[in-house]
């Protein structure tokens, strides 16, 4: 037990401030995020440049293969081809950026490279600001597409219904509203929880295995790479599913839950 204490592990839920630019705090997660951003842009621009010139190699083929798979998933989940093409940049960027940011947490030196006593490296996905921001973007974009598809009134009709005419529908609307908030929160917390837990896991394994860390850590790093891929894909797929659900409410708002008209219909039939 004293060994762990002697290690003086830095485990913090919040990303830690490295320095300030004016009043703006620059955290370790932002620094790693910037690296992730540069890597993402560099990879995708390199691939796009090669594709544009028609010069292919194995790496370009790999990225293109992943992109094609993502595009296929988008078209499978969102049947409207026009909407699918519109949501593609957001969904694919989420996948690539989350994947690369998550994988940066596996970089060696996670806990050892310090600046003013604060670790320099921390995955951006282990920063709630980023995951919450991403979830907010997703929720807002989903609402924008829902409004474009259903109209402002139609989209509002998903949440707000007349409780006197349609009490069950009104209750459903409230649940839908709560669902929107919970979906966004779940998106943010799921990614953050996994990334943060992954980082803590690597730190703890490194501490527990001491000199054997060089043997033990690669297994856990491999596992984290796999989890990173899963989380990026889950975020990507959930973004698409939420969009698909939001725009597929055509006519659903007209569902009649009140028993009165049904009885009228029944009488007329009878």
């Amino acid at each position: 037990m004293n060994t762990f204490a002697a290690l003086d592990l830095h485990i913090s839920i919040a990303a830690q401030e490295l320095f300030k630019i004016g009043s703006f705090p620059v955290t370790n997660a932002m620094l790693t995020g910037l690296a992730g951003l540069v890597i993402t842009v560099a990879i995708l621009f390199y691939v796009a440049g090669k594709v544009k010139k028609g010069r292919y190699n194995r790496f370009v083929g790999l990225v293109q293969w992943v992109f094609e798979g993502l595009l296929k998933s988008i078209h499978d989940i969102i049947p409207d081809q026009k909407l699918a093409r519109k949501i593609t940049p957001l969904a694919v960027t989420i996948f690539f950026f989350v994947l690369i940011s998550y994988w940066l947490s596996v970089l060696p030196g996670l806990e050892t490279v310090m600046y003013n006593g604060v670790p320099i490296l921390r995955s951006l996905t282990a920063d709630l600001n980023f995951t919450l921001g991403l979830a907010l973007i997703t929720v807002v974009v989903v609402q924008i597409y829902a409004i474009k598809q259903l109209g402002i009134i139609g989209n509002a009709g998903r949440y707000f219904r007349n409780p006197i005419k349609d009490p069950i529908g009104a209750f459903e609307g409230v649940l839908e509203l709560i669902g929107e908030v919970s979906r966004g929160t779940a998106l943010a917390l799921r990614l953050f929880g996994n990334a943060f837990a992954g980082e803590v896991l690597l730190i703890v394994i490194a501490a527990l295995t001491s000199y054997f860390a060089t043997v033990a850590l690669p297994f856990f790093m491999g596992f984290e790479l796999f989890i990173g891929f899963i989380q990026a894909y889950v975020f990507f797929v959930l973004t698409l599913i939420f969009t698909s659900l939001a725009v597929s409410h055509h006519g659903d708002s007209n569902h009649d839950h009140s028993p009165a008209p049904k009885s009228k219909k029944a009488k007329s039939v009878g």
Partner: protein
Amino acid sequence: MEILRQFASTEAAAAESSDIFSALGINWMMLIFQIVAFLLLVVLLGKFVYPWLIKSVDERQDKINAATKAASEAQAAAVDAEARVEKLLKKARVEAADIVATAKLESASALAASEEKAKKRSEQIISDAQDEIKKEVIAAKTALHNETIELVALATEKVVGKAVSSKIDESLITDALKAVK
């Protein structure tokens, strides 16, 4: 566990010192900055990267579709060609059978004609030979007749003892022969 105690105490202290958002590290300024940065990334990639990748995927898909279409067309053409070949083979077999039958008939008729011709030719040869023989016989008879007349004339001359002219001689012989007949 010292780690967990340390971890818990740090977070508890943070939670006590500030609200829940601060404890979780949520800073509105950083949140907005990261949202803007991410949206810029989406716009940048959406404008300069994805169109090329989508275009390449679409082109490849078009090529696959075209190849699939070509393959199905080729398959249909192969089936059609096979049917046509079968039909042609059937027709060829029928034609070949007709040709063989015709050839057999023609060869039979040619054989019969040549047999007929050979028969006629042989009959002609025989007939010619017979005519020749007849002519030779007649010639021989004529020669014999003339020799006989000469002999008779000589004999008669010797018997009669006087020489007669050839014309008288001849008329005498002729008369004698007529008398003999």
